Structures are given as structure tokens and as C-alpha cells.
């Protein structure tokens, strides 16, 4: 069965391409038409209204309506900032990298439109330190756009100024959390801030700041150029409008980024028709939909549509749409141990329950996987998780409990078998 989708990708219109689209190429394909249109025919308020009407929701994980976020920025004069979240460090996520590496100008145009909409003259693009190639390409594309008069002082002959600074991180998942990102930009240890105040009021340098994900902003040029009506012909409006890039990884034959309308395909269709099925024709044991940060879905949920609401109704989150496929040969305890190892490594250490708890969860999971678990360990894991969840400053602490809680709930027998047999029943992988 193949889903014959009559869909021309908007965000990544050159599937499989590895080289960056140049300014000339991008412009030949209507690139910067939205930027010109906004500068010459729209007020900033009209840009915000258009984005609101599009129904675009944040693609960085939380799905917050982008136009509303922009609308929170106070109108008063004074410095305002845009901070673009290109920290992309959630396991299973590699879409912002491809957007920046292949479509740098689409990203830049989206950032410029955001600056114009909120009245910011400076945007920081915070890119994870390991993305050296992507950051180099982005800087080159910004220089190209400046030389062409699209950015800089007096963009396209108007009085609008836009400056973009690429800021390279240095290895820390927590910098993707928006207030830790701001701390990192300010040269402080990147630990999340308590809220309020929210960044829209007091963000970077205590000034009003919009923080958006790369993919979110990459949607904006087409929304402005072609209108919110057109945008809503893609996906399943009003709550799931537009295209989404699905990152598919794990035990599939053809992992990769697949851009599809929200709600157009099911998890099964993504795996079978786009990922060309599970390696070796094996059965699916479970699928993670938001990297390692939301509950795993069992195989009976494979017919769930890939949109925010459907995945939530199935018991998880769409998040950044990072789908990791686990097949029948995958040991669930080992998978949970690896996921918890990530959180132990990435906890910023500010809150005791998260700092100590992730370490404990990892240790207990490891001993079960290594055949030294005790029957009481499962309840211990669950009660420890309860001591972290909801008792910490940022969402990382909550994310860190989902590998434990969801896998015990869904695959308890597998844990029990490890404990009873005193060893892992699966072949190593």
C-alpha cells in the first residue's frame, strides 16, 4: 500500500540534495518574494496577523502558535531581539541541520520576516557547536544576502535594518531550552531561568525577545508570499496547518527527513512508504515520536495520524516529530537505559531531583539490563520518577522520566523477565 500524496514540498523542495541552494537559485524560485512583499506592502502588524491566520505552530517541540507569540511583544520603542533556536540536540532530530545546510536562504528570509514583524534589528541564530558545516554555510548565505542588499542597513532600499549573528554553542542539550539559550547568549552558565518574567517581556539582555525554532521560521516566507489561505490548504487546519518535516530513524530501511502535510499520513505509512519498511521485514515493537522526550507508543498505535492532536490522543507528543523505530529484536530495557544515559549527561544540575534523579534512574536501569535487578526495582524506578516529574524548573526533568515510566507501563513483562532470568533475553545490538 502506498499513499499517493500529491504534495510538493515547501520547506525542503529538493529532497536528497546535499549542497546549499544559492541566493540566485533561491530567488529564481520566488525566494525573498515574501520579504519584498512585507517590506513594501505590509505593516509589521499585518505580518503578525498573517502568521496568526496561518495557524502555524512552533516546530521546536511545544507547538505554541507562532503568531500569538509574536503578538505578545510590546509595541513600545526600544531594543527587541529575535533568538533562533538551532540547538537541535534531541536524539533522533536532524531537520534543522538539513534546512540550514540546504536551504539557508529560506531560514534567513524567515528570520528577517520575524525581525520585521516584532521590530527587532538584531537576530541571533544559536546553532549547536557540532554543526560546524551548517554554521559555515549559514554565515556564507547571510553574507550573500547582505551583499545583495536584502539584509543590513536599509533592507531593499527601505529604512528597515536587520542584522543576523550566528552564535555557535559548545555542546549542551539544555541550551535548546529557550531561557537557557538566552543565558548562554549572555555568556552565563546555561541554566534555565524561572518564569515569569517571560522572554516576550524580559528576554535577551532583559529586552523583549522572540525565540523560535529554525523550522518554524522556515515556514514564514511562503506564508507571507502566498497567504494564510494557501497555507491552510496544507495539512488539517485549524490546529494542524501546514507542512512538517518528519525525522525518521532507527530500524527502518530508509531513514531520513520527510516533509509531509500535518495529519496526512499515519506512523505506519511513514515507516512503510517513506522509510521503505522495517529492516529485515521485522515487526515494530514501538515508536518514539518526539525523540527520547515523550512516551513510547506501542505497535497497536501505528495507525495514528501524524499531527499534534492525534499523537497526543494516542498517549504521546508529536514534539519535534523525531520518529525512532524500535523493532521486535530491540531490548526495551537497553533502549530505556540509553535514553536515560542521555538525560543523566544533559541535566544542567540546577535542580537536585533532576541532577541526582537522572543518575539514579540510569544506575537502576543499567543494573536491570545487566541482569542484577531486584523485583523491587520497578517500583523504585516509578517512585523516583514521581519525585522528579513536576518538581523541577524546566521540562528536561519531566522528559527524563518518560523513558522509564512509559516503558515500564507498556513493556513491564520484559523488565520482569530481565530480573527473573538474571540476564538480558535479547542478542546484543
Amino acid at each position, binding site marked *: 500500500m502506498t499513499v499517493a500524496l500529491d504534495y510538493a514540498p515547501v520547506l525542503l523542495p529538493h529532497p536528497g540534495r546535499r549542497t546549499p541552494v544559492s541566493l540566485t537559485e533561491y530567488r529564481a524560485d520566488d525566494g525573498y518574494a515574501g520579504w519584498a512583499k512585507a517590506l513594501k506592502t505590509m505593516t509589521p502588524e499585518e505580518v503578525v496577523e498573517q502568521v496568526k491566520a496561518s495557524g502555524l505552530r512552533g516546530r521546536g517541540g511545544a507547538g505554541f502558535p507562532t503568531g500569538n507569540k509574536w503578538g505578545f511583544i510590546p509595541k513600545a520603542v526600544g531594543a527587541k531581539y529575535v533568538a533562533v533556536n538551532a540547538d537541535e540536540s534531541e536524539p533522533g532530530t536532524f531537520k534543522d541541520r538539513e534546512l540550514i545546510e540546504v536551504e539557508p536562504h529560506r531560514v534567513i528570509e524567515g528570520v528577517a520576516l520575524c525581525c520585521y514583524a516584532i521590530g527587532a534589528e538584531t537576530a541571533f541564530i544559536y546553532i549547536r557547536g557540532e554543526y560546524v558545516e551548517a554554521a559555515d554555510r549559514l554565515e556564507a548565505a547571510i553574507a550573500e544576502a547582505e551583499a545583495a542588499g536584502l539584509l543590513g542597513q536599509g533592507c531593499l532600499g527601505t529604512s528597515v535594518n536587520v542584522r543576523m549573528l550566528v552564535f555557535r554553542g559548545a555542546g549542551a542539550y539544555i541550551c535548546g531550552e529557550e531561557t537557557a539559550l538566552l543565558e548562554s547568549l549572555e*555568556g552565563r552558565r546555561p541554566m534555565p531561568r524561572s518564569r515569569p518574567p517571560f522572554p516576550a517581556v524580559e528576554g535577551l539582555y532583559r529586552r523583549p525577545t522572540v525565540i523560535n525554532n529554525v523550522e518554524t521560521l522556515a515556514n514564514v516566507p511562503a506564508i507571507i508570499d502566498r497567504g494564510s489561505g494557501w497555507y491552510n490548504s496544507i495539512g488539517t487546519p485549524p490546529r494542524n496547518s501546514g507542512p512538517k518535516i518528519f525525522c525518521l530513524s532507527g530500524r527502518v530501511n530508509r531513514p*531520513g527527513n520527510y516533509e509531509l502535510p500535518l495529519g496526512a499520513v499515519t506512523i505506519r505509512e511513514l515507516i512503510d512508504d517513506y522509510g521503505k519498511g522495517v529492516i529485515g521485514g521485522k515487526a515494530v515493537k514501538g515508536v518514539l515520536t518526539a525523540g527520547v522526550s515523550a512516551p513510547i507508543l506501542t505497535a497497536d498505535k501505528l495507525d495514528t495520524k501524524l499531527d499534534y492532536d492525534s499523537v497526543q490522543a494516542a498517549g504521546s507528543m508529536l514534539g519535534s516529530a523525531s520518529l525512532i523505530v524500535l523493532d521486535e529484536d530491540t531490548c526495551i530495557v537497553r533502549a530505556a537505559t540509553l535514553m536515560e544515559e542521555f538525560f543523566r549527561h544533559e541535566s544542567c544540575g540546577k535542580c537536585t531531583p533532576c541532577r541526582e534523579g537522572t543518575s539514579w534512574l540510569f544506575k537502576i536501569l543499567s543494573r536491570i539490563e545487566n541482569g542484577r535487578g531486584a523485583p523491587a526495582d520497578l517500583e523504585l524506578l516509578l517512585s523516583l520518577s514521581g519525585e522528579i516529574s513536576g518538581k523541577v524548573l524546566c521540562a528536561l526533568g519531566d522528559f527524563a522520566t518518560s523513558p522509564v515510566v512509559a516503558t515500564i507501563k507498556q513493556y513491564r513483562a520484559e523488565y520482569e523477565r530481565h530480573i527473573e532470568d538474571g540476564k538480558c533475553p535479547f542478542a546484543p545490538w
Partner: protein
Amino acid sequence: MALSEQTRAAIDQLVARYPERRTALLPALKLAQADAGWLPPEAIAEAADLVGVPHSAALELAAFYTMLRTEPGPPTRVVVCAQLPCALRGAEGLIRELTHGLAAQIAAGSVEVERTAECFGACHRAPMARLNDAYRENLDADGRQRLIAEIAGQ
């Protein structure tokens, strides 16, 4: 002075680039690290002085970020991602083969092979490794042998 003249000049330029000086601290530390391959205490202190922040502020960052090194290490560093998507596609085997194939260089202290639980955004080209700052992806049997040869030939 621990930092080269060139690095000091580059840090001065950075400081002028941002709305607030302190934003230059992390980029300054990365520049400082490029000088010696790691961050000796004097280099951290000097970067802090150039940016105009207390030494402790710079030390805090140097200790926090995984890409900043407060101890010297071998010139060639291979970091293999062993997070779930890579593990599902043979990351542990890759680590074993690299450690085995580069045993002589590791023993001589010129190469380090490290396993990490971090994901590098290359899960669709797994298994993968970072060779210093560069990505090496789709490391199937051939790719592994090529990588070992590349490192051994350095």
C-alpha cells in the same frame, strides 16, 4: 601570555560585535581553545580579562560545555555517538572496530576514541562519528575501514 597575538586580536573584535561584551565570552573561549587544543587555566584567565569578566565566570563555562576541554588530550579525537538511533544501527560495533583498528595509535597517545550518549543530528546516517570537528557518517564496513585508514595515515 597564554594566547597568541592573533587570538587576542580576534577576541577584541568579537567583543565589539555584540550588544553586550559578555556575549563574547563563549566564542572567546572557543578561540582560545583553538590555540593549544585545550584550555589551560592561564588561557581561561586571559580570555576572561579580554572580555572583562571575572575569571570564575569563564571557568564556569569551561567546566560546563562538553566541547570545551580543561585537560589536554590526544590531537586526534574520535567521538562515536551511541545514543538510541545510532545504537539501533550498529554504534557499539563501530566503537569496537575503531578501538581495535586504532589500538596502536591509542596506545601511543595520538588518538582517542570516545563513546558518547549525545546525539549529533546524524541519526539518519548512522552509525556515525565525529573526527575532531568533522562528521563521518554512514559508517558501514567499508566506511569504517576508510575511517581507520584515514586516521592511521595522519
